[in-house]
């Protein structure tokens, strides 16, 4: 164990306007070992790996490979130093064959013509080494995600890398494919490749990794040998010892009637989801990244298709069947990506606030009543304390917290009885977080059923009346509002249910 680290990243810092992504982060990896890199969203894992992959250049810090310092200015530099990066989003060319995809960054030629025979033969060889028997003239689009990943790995392996980075490699794999991947990783270790394995799935790293490095808020929190730690400890390291803020809402002893009932929901990665939401309660949807929380919210309102399941909604004092599209017209939804899917950035705050309520702001002639619109905007700006210099200010110029308030405000104007919020405090400062959380609690007090997703258990603990715990697309537990932080953490770090083999 005294072998020197093959890869040493030290003191790496990177700041973007308004956001510090890395603060003196460190990472080491030895030949033939797999280091797990873990951390919550925004912890800096991707940025650190982008630095290693030559995609981003750091503001400070050093990288040493095999004892010599290196500068990785471009992706080519990284490749030249033997670094291969298998991204979560595979770089596949769907209509082209497996062989062509494997050789996409360097087609073999003979007399100026692409040497198809060599390409197919070498690609087949690489795939066999990976334990994969794909015919190399299949179009990649006919392959499932597991096989496509094999193609991507084969492409990376062509250059005989010394360092390989895997970014969330198992999110879309079946059990068998995961086994195959793990064997490949073991094989790579035997060949002396240094592996960095980014994942959210704590159980996996105990199977194939030797050490784990945990990041939080842009710095490296700790590095442990796998043998000397436990899943719970890792989750605790990831999420930190943040104080739970004070409780922002009285726990609801008895909630109102059931407003939404979900049974047997299946679609995408979701499997057999059953739960119900009552009026006046805030339910926290808790789980690690990749557990399917966002997918669940999107499926509920029809942004993603459902394969099976029934939804019922209370109308006129009775639970009636309802489609996701109908729920969309009833619910307010604050998505994860407020800039990409929430706001119309060039438009004014007023226009963004009124967008979902336009039909109720009309004059008898059918035109938008500007007075009423302005009144609505002013009311919401006041109620939510949105810092704008005037309702005409373009929403794209507001701070993150205020932007989020605009999104919430838009739905408030429609007085929904169901509110779905996905990571509503992401990227906000402490003060803004509190405000949004208070707003969320107030929504429930007004009689709506509220479902909140957050990756920070402390936040949920400030407002939730109960918790739904998800893992790998299933609801694995329901916990009361009195659950402690430790209980919440162990609910997600315990070995989850296995997905059925494909």
């Amino acid at each position, binding site marked *: 164990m005294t072998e020197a680290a093959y890869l040493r990243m030290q003191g790496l810092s990177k700041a973007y306007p308004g956001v510090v992504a890395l603060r003196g982060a460190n990472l080491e990896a030895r030949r033939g070992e797999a280091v797990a890199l873990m951390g919550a969203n925004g912890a800096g894992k991707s940025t650190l790996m982008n630095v290693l992959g030559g995609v981003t250049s750091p503001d400070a810090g050093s990288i040493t490979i095999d004892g010599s310092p290196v500068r990785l200015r471009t992706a080519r530099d990284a490749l030249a130093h033997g670094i291969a990066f298998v991204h979560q989003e595979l770089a596949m060319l769907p209509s082209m064959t497996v062989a062509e995809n494997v050789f996409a960054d360097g087609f073999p030629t003979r007399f100026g013509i692409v040497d198809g025979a060599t390409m197919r033969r070498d690609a087949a060889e690489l795939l066999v080494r990976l334990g994969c028997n794909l015919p190399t003239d299949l179009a990649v689009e006919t392959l499932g995600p597991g096989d496509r990943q094999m193609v991507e790995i084969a492409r990376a392996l062509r250059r005989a890398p010394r360092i390989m980075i895997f970014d969330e490699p198992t999110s879309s794999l079946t059990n068998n494919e995961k086994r195959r991947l793990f064997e490949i990783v073991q094989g790579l270790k035997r060949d002396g490749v240094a592996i960095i394995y980014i994942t959210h799935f704590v159980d996996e790293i105990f199977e194939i990794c030797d050490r784990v490095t945990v990041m939080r808020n842009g710095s490296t929190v700790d590095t442990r040998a796998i043998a000397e730690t436990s899943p719970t400890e890792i989750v605790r390291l990831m999420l930190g010892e943040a104080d739970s803020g004070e409780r922002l809402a009285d726990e609801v002893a008895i909630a109102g009637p059931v407003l939404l009932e979900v049974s047997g929901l299946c679609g995408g990665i979701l499997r057999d989801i059953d739960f119900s939401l009552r009026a006046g309660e805030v339910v926290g949807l808790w789980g690690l990244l990749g557990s399917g929380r966002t997918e669940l919210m999107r499926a509920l309102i029809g942004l993603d298709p459902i394969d099976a399941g029934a939804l019922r909604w209370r109308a006129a004092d009775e639970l009636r069947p309802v489609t996701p599209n109908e729920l969309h017209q009833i619910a307010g939804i604050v998505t994860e990506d407020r800039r990409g899917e929430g706001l*119309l*950035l*060039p*438009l004014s705050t007023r226009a963004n606030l009124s967008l979902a309520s336009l039909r109720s702001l009309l004059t008898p002639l059918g035109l938008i009543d500007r007075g009423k619109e302005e009144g609505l905007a002013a009311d919401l700006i006041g109620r939510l304390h949105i*810092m704008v210099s*005037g309702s005409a200010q373009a929403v794209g110029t*507001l701070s993150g917290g205020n932007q989020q308030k605009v999104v919430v405000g838009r739905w408030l104007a429609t007085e929904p009885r169901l509110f779905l919020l996905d990571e509503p405090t992401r990227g906000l400062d402490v003060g803004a977080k509190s405000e949004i959380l208070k707003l969320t609690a107030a929504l429930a007090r007004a009689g709506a059923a509220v479902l909140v997703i957050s990756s920070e258990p402390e936040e949920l603990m400030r407002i939730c009346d109960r918790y739904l715990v998800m893992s790998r697309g299933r609801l694995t537990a329901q916990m009361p509002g009195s659950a402690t932080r430790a209980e919440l953490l162990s609910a997600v770090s315990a070995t989850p249910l296995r997905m059925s083999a494909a």
Partner: protein
Amino acid sequence: MGASIGQAEGRRAGRWSGVDAKLVVTAALLLVILVVLLVLAPSFFRPNNLVNVLVQTSSLGLMAVGMAPVMIAGGIDLSSPANMALGAVLGAMFMQAGGNPVVGCLIMVVAATLVGLLNGVAVALLGMIPFVVTLATMTVATGAAVWLTHSVSVSGFPDSFYDVLLARLGGIPVSVYVLIAAVIILGAAMNGTPFGRYLYAIGINPRAARVARVPVRASTCASYVVSGLMAGLTAVLLSARLGSASANMGNDGVVLDVVSACVVGGVSIYGGSGYVTGAALGALVITLLSNNLNLLGVSYYLNLMTKGVVIIGFVALDGLRRRAS
């Protein structure tokens, strides 16, 4: 209960935001052209000629004003002039056979609107690429018009047709009033109705629009219907002015003029910005550009080249502006 005035970050989106600035650019261009004309060809400003220019602008303007909502929502309608020609031809043939001119006009409008509906359905419901769909519709519509007329222009409108449509109120022809009315009505619709807001939203960010409960497919389809409707109105007015209808009314050059008018008028090809008024002003600029060049003795062919350069230039600038922001 006023707005929370506080330390708002970033610049204000005041009156001179990038969007309004585009109208200013168009207006400035207009001014430049008028000045050049004043200096080089003052005969341009004779009342008769001015009226002529306005009349010419009205047909291009109506189509541009109809295309603006489509472009604002992020689409494009290349078939507008061809729809106009087809509608014109159908109505004209009806009237030539002795039909009632009112019904004839109705046929022109309805035919073009129906083709617009076809475009709308293809784009909004079938998910086809707007450029390609309207290119195909354009070909079919022109083909149909050519087939129906055997490439011969159709005339023989009844007198009442001309009497109404070529009339002048206070010295200004009906077609100019129609254009102004269209600008006012469509402008009001785009600025002041939910439909208009929806189109802007779709053009800016279709994903966000969908989440915000904007009826994306219905609105997109409706925008193409509007374009068809405007093409139909143009058919009526243009047939009256020309005294005949032919398949050639909607040739390639007209398409470029319509798109140019919108682009020069500040309606971005990428969607989400621009005003109906801008499209009308743009039509005026393009008309003046054509006239201008004619007056200066520039050949028709050089005219074409200039137009090609103008449209590419404006879109390039728009693209540069977007990337810079």
